[in-house]
């Protein structure tokens, strides 16, 4: 660990809310590269607000897709003399930092009054990580969709082979021709066939 960002970063404490251990470690690693931060990871959703209060961090990082994020809003209400006011970092003037964070899917809660330049290395590191996660998420969704479509096409092919005595190739050709004639995707035609067959059975 090299404290490359000078003494201002020293001791700044960061809590990362992330249930996936591998993802959490990746964020921790990239933060370690960005500066000398005191980092805690909270993995369980229950009692989130209380756990965070116990750590009393300067910054909280949480995935925007995490529904438990709403529990953090309680922190913004804490008003006792020992409680530290926490608010989401929403200073839109700060070099588009927050826009970049939102786009990358990370939300940062910071203690009120923390200067944007102290937050910047943290957010820069987190944003880079979260962008990568978001790409992975999109890829996964796409792969899933492609798999689903292939399954449906296979089922439709099987039905056609059985009902019309076609070979697999002929069945696929029929699906493709129908799709082209109707200006639809092969997967959509296959889905329609499977649905109709389900209704008729």
């Amino acid at each position: 660990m090299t404290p490359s960002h000078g003494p201002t970063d020293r001791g700044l404490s960061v809590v990362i809310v992330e249930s996936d251990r591998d993802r959490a470690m990746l964020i921790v690693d990239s933060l370690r590269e960005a500066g000398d931060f005191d980092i805690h990871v909270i993995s369980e959703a229950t009692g989130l607000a209380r756990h965070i209060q116990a750590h009393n961090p300067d910054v909280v990082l949480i995935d925007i897709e995490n529904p438990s994020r709403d529990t953090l809003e309680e922190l913004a209400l804490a008003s006792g003399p020992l409680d530290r006011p926490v608010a989401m970092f929403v200073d839109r003037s700060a070099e588009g930092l927050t826009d970049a964070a939102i786009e990358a899917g990370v939300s940062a809660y910071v203690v009120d009054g923390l200067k944007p330049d102290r937050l910047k290395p943290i957010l820069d590191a987190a944003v880079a990580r979260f962008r990568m996660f978001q790409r992975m998420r999109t890829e996964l969704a796409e792969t899933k969709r492609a798999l689903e479509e292939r399954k449906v096409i296979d089922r439709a092919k099987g039905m056609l082979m059985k009902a019309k005595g076609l070979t697999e190739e002929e069945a696929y050709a029929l699906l493709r021709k129908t799709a082209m004639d109707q200006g639809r995707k092969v997967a959509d035609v296959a889905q329609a066939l499977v649905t109709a067959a389900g209704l008729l059975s």
Partner: protein
Amino acid sequence: MTATRLAVGFIPLLDAAPLVVAQEMGYAAEESLDLDLLRAPSWSSLRDMLVFGRVQAAHMLAPVPVAAALGLGGAGAPLAAVSVLSVNGNVIGTSRALAARLRDQGHAFGFDDAGAAGRALIAAAPQPLRIGVPFPFSMHAELLYYWLSALGLPAPQGVDIRTVPPPLMAEAIAAGEIDAFCVGEPWGSIVVEQGVGELLLPGRAIWSFAPEKVLAARTDWATAEPDLLGRLIRAVWRAGRWLDAPGSRSLAAEILARPEYLDLDAEVLDRGLTGRITIAATGEQRDVPGNLEFHRGAASFPWRSQAAWIAVQLAARTGLDRAAAARTGSGTFRSDLYRAALAATKADLPGASAKLEGALAEETAVASDGGHLFLRPNRFFDRRIFDPDAPL
């Protein structure tokens, strides 16, 4: 003319119905709008999507724009409530263990008497009573604080109100993290369906005409885009009118049940929409007339006095000046923008933009543009009346 695409965010709840129906039943198209409906994972994320311009309008908890105006919470830009999306619709429930204690103490689960249910709950509850609500700034929280304080349980001191996202409410009850909850449908019915809790009271038993969700936009956008905003308000108003027509509710349940909206069983959604609510896994049912209103009695009119009521509750809880909060807060419910949008339609708009809240024991005719407007009963369970001009 090609339709203008407008990104609108929502949370998977029954009261997102006016937005979904506006798009699905063609009311948006009638106004040359194409709503890109984005399901948000949490209220704070939806609020941020709105603040950062990812969506132009959003399904929002009625207290959020008010809280933002009072400087409470993390909103980063002024928000405007340009229309009320829904009135009432929350349910209060308990864990099975607490429900059993209530029964043992002789509570009949009548589902209509907030005084009786509240006193029974306070008597049977562990100390401190832990109650889950979806968001710190919500009608759920405000109704609970109002109800329990009026019955002598000092709130927020005497009760531990915790934030639990609606889809996780059943899990939180099952895990014993909370003893009770207040949540919008269908998530109360989901708790019953999973057999982990029972329902005690509909929110409307506490306040019979509580503004629940609003159509929110960033104030600068709402004032800079009067034409787009007007088209959106009209489309949503017509969707609300359709939703309140007899026979629409079951079809609405089918539409909302789709994977891209709530992705749940239509039968469970039907309960909150029709007000025929199953309160326990034994199948016991209760009828709640007016459980969820979208249109009748000027339900979508954003009354300044509703915002003032919310502002005063928030102020009392956070130590702000109540009269100042009422003034600031009431400005977030934009009855002016709503009127401008609906001026050229058949909508019968009330003559006033503020009223006494809690003063109507029964349906009452009021002065309106068309002269045919009846307001629905509007009562607090303790018969208190809120005067927005003397908010104390």
